[in-house]
């Protein structure tokens, strides 16, 4: 046993990397289907969208890039699915420079495939990307067409049916921002006080802790924190709309629920290594002290 812990102290860190790799790969190859418990911020986000009425307009802002897509993509997809199932109209925009537009286009294309009845321009629209996020938000609070004169296809906003009666953010019933970095925060600290539009945020797990303060202060309606939050939201969606069960069960596409399996397995492995590492270190230090004495 002493030899084992001695080896742990001097273990090449690349063995740990290998364990991490195997612990993540295994649940992807053989999904376990571990349960996902909902937290209050995700439940609040889901319930708020459920409380909206047919035809209400939701703005979905892609404020992240490919580097955090595994966390943010499932959130954006799930919220869009809920909008489509609830017959809400949604307008998509992208404010993150590196790749948000491409991700927005991909997610929109995926939802178009899943809901062939959705009509572009009537049920949803894609405004594309605009540089200078804070200034764009400021402008959208006064005049959306001032910030986005055309949609992503180059059609003037005045010619898009969904934008009739949606002059600025005051006519939008909800802003959902899937975000990495500061852009998501600006929807809360700048747009919400400016126009009063309710905001739900889907931050990366790294940013999630700071948004709890905004939940407590009532500045955001709800939050989908990282991949776990996205998995919780998918769970709620499956419970409320049983037709989604088939999709989430059968698709080979990536979902946060599947990612949650890998998260849980790897967290267990990390905890084991933490425990082993600390025991080995304490024993090593005690042995060194005895050697000195």
């Amino acid at each position, binding site marked *: 046993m002493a030899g084992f812990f001695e080896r742990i102290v001097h273990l090449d860190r*690349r063995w740990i*990397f290998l364990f*991490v*790799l195997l612990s*993540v*790969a295994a649940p*992807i*190859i053989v999904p376990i289907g571990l349960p996902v418990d909902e937290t209050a911020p995700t439940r609040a986000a889901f319930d708020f969208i459920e409380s909206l009425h047919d035809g209400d307009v939701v703005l979905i802002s892609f404020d992240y890039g490919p*580097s*955090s*897509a*595994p*966390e943010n993509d499932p959130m954006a997809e799930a919220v869009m699915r809920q909008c489509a199932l609830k017959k809400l109209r949604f307008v998509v925009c992208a404010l993150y*420079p*590196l*790749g948000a*537009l491409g991700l927005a286009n991909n997610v929109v294309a995926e939802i178009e495939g899943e809901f062939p009845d959705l009509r572009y321009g009537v049920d949803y629209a894609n405004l*594309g*990307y*605009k*540089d*200078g996020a*804070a*200034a764009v938000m*400021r402008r959208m609070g006064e005049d959306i067409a001032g910030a986005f*004169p*055309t949609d992503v296809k*180059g059609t003037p906003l005045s010619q898009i049916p969904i934008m009739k009666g949606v002059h600025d953010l005051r006519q939008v019933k909800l802003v959902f921002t899937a975000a990495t970095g500061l852009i998501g925060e*600006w929807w*809360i*600290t*700048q747009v*919400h*006080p400016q126009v009063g539009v309710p905001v739900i945020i889907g931050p*990366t*797990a*790294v940013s*999630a*802790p700071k948004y709890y*303060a905004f939940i*407590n*202060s*009532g*500045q955001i309606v709800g939050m989908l*924190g*990282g*991949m*776990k939050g996205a998995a919780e939201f998918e769970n709620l969606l499956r419970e409320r709309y049983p037709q989604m069960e088939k999709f989430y069960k059968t698709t*080979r*596409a*990536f979902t946060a629920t*599947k*990612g949650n399996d*890998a*998260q849980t397995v*790897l*967290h267990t492995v*990390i905890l084991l290594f933490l425990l082993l590492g600390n025991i080995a270190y304490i024993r090593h230090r005690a042995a060194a002290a005895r050697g000195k004495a």
Partner: protein
Amino acid sequence: MHLPHIGIWIAAFLTISSLSFLYKDNPFFRFAESLFAGVSLGYYVGIVLNQTLMPNLIAPMLEDFGQNWDLVVPGILGVLLYMRYAPKIGWVSRYALAIYVTYYIGLDFTRRLHGEVMPQLARAIQPLASLDSTTLYSLVYIVGVFSVLVYFFFSKEQGPITGRISRLGIWFLMISFGAAFGFTVMGRVALLIGRLNFLILDWIYPMIGLR
């Protein structure tokens, strides 16, 4: 069997090249790193040109200059920023920079005050009239805010009482750092899951005829 297309192969090669750094530094990792930096910059230039400059500046002026002549001003300010690369007239860029800075200070000032300081302060001031879980939670909240503020009060040397309060503040900070670190691990793991998911489901499975 449906072999993955060339884009998937390139993405798989770059993913493995990037992850290869975990074994040790190597030319494949260097190549992937440099390529990523270059492509990111090129993409950024292209997207700003097509999605911002064209529809917001160039197209409106070409279509109806009479109605959009005022766009000349931001256009010139943008060009002025690049004057810093001409040493003799580099000082001109400072005017554009000054306008940018003042605009964002104004924007950020109100954002911080109305969007963060005031609502968070309002949340910190809660009535303690009833004894329930909300009151207890508010008490913890207030004690946390107060002790952390004392810890960051550097204008006066800490005495025995303020020292103890600031020590409590350190505990609150450590707990919040622990929570933040836990979330950070979760976030980084999510990225690894995304990459391995791609390698397994989009690259390996089609190769062995599983998809």
